[in-house]
């Protein structure tokens, strides 16, 4: 579905000495996203997730590297590919001179929807995110969470085949977040491919078929959430001692319990989760 090859993005930024230097935001990224899957991109702040999404959605050009959709390079027929794409950006980007309804309508018009279809879909999507009664309000009068929900509603008006969501559930309350998860699952079940970045590891664990872990612009690993956990050891023992918070991974509960018994202080035994894998792969190795 989506194939990325050797993707590089460099920016010119000023360093401490106020000299302009080249900064690599994305460094030689290659991966494939399969049709109909929910694909997660996980990484710490500044890892290059947003930059990657922006290249995939053609908001910014790669410095180097290739992106293919269904075997076709994005440079060949970008408009045809853009028709398939829906985007939930990380930064709220409504037109502040238009009402909520007009913002939605602009989106529908930009995607060449007929006026009837537009009206129907806008109503549907606004109802879904429980913002039906805000249609005549200005976006700036909405709360942060409402704006986020509106971003999601807008991205779906034209029923995209591929949906990019850059931290879509930031600042949403747990109930709404779960509703959005259900929505994403049902979209994927209907064949929509979803690429999602998130800081909420449990979100990736709950949703994603496969996860790419990135750090400093580089791909660290790519696998299913279960495989990540299993590769560390399915069971984690956590404890505190003089050196701080410690943990270790084990293949089985028996081994973990045996180890925990040797510790002076009490220990906590639990299943390994994606967060452990994430920290292991992006942080602990480098002593962060």
């Amino acid at each position, binding site marked *: 579905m989506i194939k990325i090859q050797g993707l590089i993005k460099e920016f010119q930024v000023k360093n401490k000495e106020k000299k302009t230097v080249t900064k690599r935001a994305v460094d030689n990224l290659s991966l494939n996203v399969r049709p109909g899957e929910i694909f997660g991109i996980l990484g710490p702040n500044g890892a290059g997730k947003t930059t990657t999404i922006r290249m995939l*959605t*053609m*908001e*910014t*050009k790669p410095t180097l590297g290739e992106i293919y959709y269904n075997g076709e390079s994005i440079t060949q027929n970008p*408009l*045809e590919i*853009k*028709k398939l*794409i829906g*985007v939930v*950006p990380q*930064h*709220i*980007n*409504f*037109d*502040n*001179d*238009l009402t909520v309804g*007009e913002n939605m309508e*602009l*989106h529908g*018009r*930009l*995607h*060449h929807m007929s006026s009837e279809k537009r009206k129907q879909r806008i109503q549907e999507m606004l109802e879904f995110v429980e913002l039906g009664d805000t249609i005549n309000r200005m976006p700036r009068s909405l709360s942060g969470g409402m704006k986020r929900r509106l971003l999601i509603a807008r991205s779906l008006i034209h029923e995209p085949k591929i949906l990019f969501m850059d931290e879509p559930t930031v600042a949403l309350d747990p109930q709404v977040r779960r509703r959005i998860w259900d929505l994403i699952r049902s979209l994927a079940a209907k064949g929509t491919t979803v690429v999602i970045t998130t800081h909420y590891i449990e979100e990736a664990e709950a949703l994603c078929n496969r996860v790419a872990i990135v750090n400093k612009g580089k791909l660290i690993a790519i696998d299913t959430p279960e495989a990540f956990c299993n590769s560390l050891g399915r069971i984690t023992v956590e404890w505190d001692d003089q050196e701080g918070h410690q943990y270790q991974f084990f293949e089985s509960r028996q081994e973990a319990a045996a180890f925990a018994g040797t510790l002076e202080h009490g220990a906590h035994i639990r299943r390994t989760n994606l967060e452990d894998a994430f920290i292991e792969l992006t942080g602990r190795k480098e002593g962060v």
Partner: protein
Amino acid sequence: MLQDICTVFWRDWVVLKRRLPKFILSRMVAPMLYLVAFGWGLGRNIQVGSGSYLDFLVPGIMALNSMNISYNSLTPLCTERIYHRSIGEYIIAPMHFNAFIIGKILAAVLRGLISSAIIMILALAFGANLNITPLFVGILILNCIIFAEVGFFAAMKMDSYEELSQVNTYVLLPMSFLCGTFFSTRTLPEVFRWFIDVLPLTHTSYLLRGISTQSPVALESVAVLAVYAIIGFILGNKAFRDQLK
């Protein structure tokens, strides 16, 4: 392409429609002052060529006003680009970039023409003699296009409102006064005049005045304006594409 141009224009029309009474009212202030100060106050007893100073003045005011309005119609794009980031919606949409630029320019032309119509009505009320022909309107549109493009380019390149208003102060304001709007450039020193005569607003002023007083039209001036419009479009397109860097 046409559909996308309409969409971009539609957006600006929605915004303008909501503010139309305010827009019209505020656009009356500056020309009114010019007409009172220069037409009535200073110019009452001045004769320029065969007509009154008022008849000389009005085409100049229309030229400078359409320049200012169309330029400032597109400068809000700067905040839409940097702070609201709403330009992103257009960039990811399945739309040719030129459709965006053309739609925006057309919206600016509309604003420029509305304010020109206001001046025309005011001027007639002040007793000016004007000869408005389709060519007159055509030149006015061309002038709006050129300065809408300048506004578009500036909005894509400048990083703050501060910088944009500097363009107003250092480029548009001097042009407003010097480009044959209030007085003939013939009275200016040679070297200075040579420079002023290259600027697009000078050509617009002379063309509008010529048509208004039923003198022969300087076709080379029309050509100069057309060249400015084409260059402006190319630069605007490039500046928009640079957003993808």
